[in-house]
């Protein structure tokens, strides 16, 4: 079945440094979604990318969807302690499916 792989598993950064997490799918995705889960919290929807090569920004967060629609990245500029948490990418299990397959997540720690 479809697999969504995410790297790195962990990332420790000094506050103010940049951070990037990468997501790769074994199949072409109709869309890719990103979620953030704070420690002790539940996943919170961040964004959905649909178009090939799409780039979206949310303040210091930049999301990209690859041209082949099989990979994606999340880049955070100048991390802050509020960015701490686990970032998950997720893609539909099949074309047009509402069910999601989640990557294993990247746990971000920010050292003040």
């Amino acid at each position, binding site marked *: 079945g479809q697999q969504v792989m995410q790297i790195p598993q962990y990332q420790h950064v000094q506050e103010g440094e940049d951070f990037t997490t990468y997501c790769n799918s074994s199949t072409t995705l109709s*869309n890719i*979604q990103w979620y953030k889960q704070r420690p002790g*919290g*539940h*996943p*919170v*929807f961040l964004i*959905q990318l649909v178009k090939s090569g799409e780039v979206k920004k949310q303040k210091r967060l930049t999301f990209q969807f690859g041209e082949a629609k099989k990979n994606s990245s999340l880049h955070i500029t100048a991390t802050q302690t509020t960015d701490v948490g686990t970032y*998950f990418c997720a893609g*539909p*299990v099949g074309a047009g499916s*509402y*069910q*999601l*397959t*989640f*990557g*294993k*997540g990247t*746990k971000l720690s920010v050292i003040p």
Partner: protein
Amino acid sequence: SAVISQKPSRDICQRGTSLTIQCQVDSQVTMMFWYRQQPGQSLTLIATANQGSEATYESGFVIDKFPISRPNLTFSTLTVSNMSPEDSSIYLCSVELAGRYEQYFGPGTRLTVT
């Protein structure tokens, strides 16, 4: 978005017993999902619960172990039956809104089986 609540927020149960988790949404939604998340791990989809039809289960999950009800468009329950310590996990419900594909999660139920 949607406001989703879950009950209980946490519970400690003895092996062999069953626990029913409730999920309530503040608006009518067609698709609801149940996930399991082991501490420090990713989310694993258990089943999809659509109102008016039987829940569809993912590979590795069966109805006898995880019966689901979906009596209306704002409510669903997941029962974890005949529990063993391996069922200790966080159980989350989520909803998909109006064909937008993105999902919104409840706060989760932390289950410990002793």
